[in-house]
């Protein structure tokens, strides 16, 4: 394959006087795990919001399989096969896990609200098919136990998995994970690592991940992009990036800061 799956081209975004992302370019290739790292305020989540079109870039663009997506409304971007999770978990709180996952199938619906109102045969068939597909995800992430639970009552670690499951129910081609391990204990983080590897290998989904846990990053990432203050520090394998003096300085601060 010669074309990148996702390209960020000279991406910049400005909020008032603040340049949150400044002239960032990178390519993500099919079937890789691509991590964004950097200290707080580096612009990682902002880049995610730019990819999923929640923000509009001030200049530059995002291309998905050579198509410019940064000017589309967010729901159209989702229909192109880009799913995401959120840093602070944005689940549908007052619905069951199953319903949350079924929302993930939304882009694949073919019926309109009139058919839904009458619950026609095609709606019924589609619903059964959705239900079956969602069950595959439930099995994949071991959520059987929580199927009928309300999200509002679930512990944090489970919610994190449910959010991943919801994104996977979309059967995306590109998955954006915003800090998948934050708030998880070591064991749960371990599981998350296995799942990300499986998502890449078994499901063939490309993953872009924002992550602070360097252990997880080096375990699963193919390439890492380090950012600081909205600008690219370096790009390379996890080892290369971790050894980069600019990265060490960004995380630990200059000698005089200490």
């Amino acid at each position, binding site marked *: 394959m010669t074309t990148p799956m996702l390209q960020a081209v000279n991406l910049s975004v400005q909020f008032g006087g603040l340049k949150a992302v400044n002239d960032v370019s990178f390519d993500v290739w099919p079937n890789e795990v691509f991590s964004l790292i950097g200290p707080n305020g580096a612009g990682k*989540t902002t880049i995610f919001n730019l990819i999923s079109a*929640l923000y509009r870039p001030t200049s530059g663009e995002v291309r998905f399989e050579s198509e410019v997506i940064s000017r589309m409304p967010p729901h159209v971007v989702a229909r192109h096969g880009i799913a995401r999770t*959120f*840093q*602070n978990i*944005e689940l549908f709180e007052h619905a069951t896990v199953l319903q949350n996952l079924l929302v993930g199938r939304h882009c694949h619906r073919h019926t309109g609200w009139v058919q839904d109102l009458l619950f026609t045969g095609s709606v019924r068939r589609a619903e059964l098919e959705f239900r079956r597909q969602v069950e595959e995800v439930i099995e994949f992430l071991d959520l059987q136990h929580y199927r009928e639970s309300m999200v509002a009552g679930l512990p944090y670690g489970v919610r994190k998995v449910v959010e991943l499951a919801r994104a996977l129910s979309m059967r995306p081609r590109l998955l954006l994970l915003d800090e998948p391990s934050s708030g998880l204990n070591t064991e749960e983080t371990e599981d998350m690592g296995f799942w990300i590897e499986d998502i890449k290998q078994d499901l063939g989904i490309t993953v872009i991940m924002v992550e602070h846990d360097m252990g997880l990053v080096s375990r699963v990432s193919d390439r890492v992009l380090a950012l600081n203050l909205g600008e690219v520090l370096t790009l390379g394998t996890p080892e290369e990036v971790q050894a980069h003096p600019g990265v060490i300085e960004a995380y630990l601060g200059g000698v005089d800061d200490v």
Partner: protein
Amino acid sequence: MLQLLQLIVSGAAIGCIYALIALGFVLIYKATETVNFAQGDLMMIGGFLGLTAMTVAGMPFAVAFLLTTVAMALVGMGAERLVLRPLLGQPAFTMIMMTIGLGYLARGVVTMIPYWGTETHTLPVPYKDEVIWLGGEGTGLVVSVEHLVIILATVVLVALLYAFFRYTRLGIAMQATSQNQLAAFYMGIPVRRVNMLIWGLSSAICGVAGLLLAPITFVHANMGFVGLKAFPAAVVGGFGSIPGALVGGLIIGIVESLAGFYLPEGFKDIAAYVVVLVMLVVKPNGLFGENLTKKV
């Protein structure tokens, strides 16, 4: 030209009432992100309290005015303590529904109180039905003293509030709370008590508005519906902004007054709502509003 000026002055007077009620909304909204739909009904209660103080207890206007303000502050604080504080942390809609319930209840209860009832009452203010001629008797601008008092009282009240927020410890604590409750709490500000005081302050302002409005519209149980027009005022100004509430109130008042004269019958009553709809389409954050986008 004189005609226009005349309309603007009377519009501005009513606008001041809207502005005061909107100010009440904004104070509470800034502090607790709750919108008090009972604001207009608080104003109505204020009107009745003043009426009782003057006609039943026979107090002079100034005393009744002060007493009503204090009583209204207590009513507001009581409402916060009794029914709103238990809901802290609940979704905004729960709080809104509670205030809607309070307003509904207030309109019912008021009619059951002896002497208040369902009739309309006149508040016997000393300046009733007096007018002042500006620029020559018979030829200049005629301003009713009732309108003048409203405008002057609003100016004084706003100046006092400004000084309060700017220079007193409590005022600064209230400002801090309205910017960031959690941070204010960590800084040792008793957020709950401050919230209660804000409710008190807000309803005291409404009480004042009620007393000022009473000479024009009479005192009756449905007087509080005027308060609904303070919503457009608050939105036009930008919901979280105090100067916005004032400007918004004036705009709504003046537009209404002009619409009543230049447009066919019926437009006066809906002018405020048309303005707010236009505003919501053109500039939802209002003239002085803050950004309301949620961060993810």
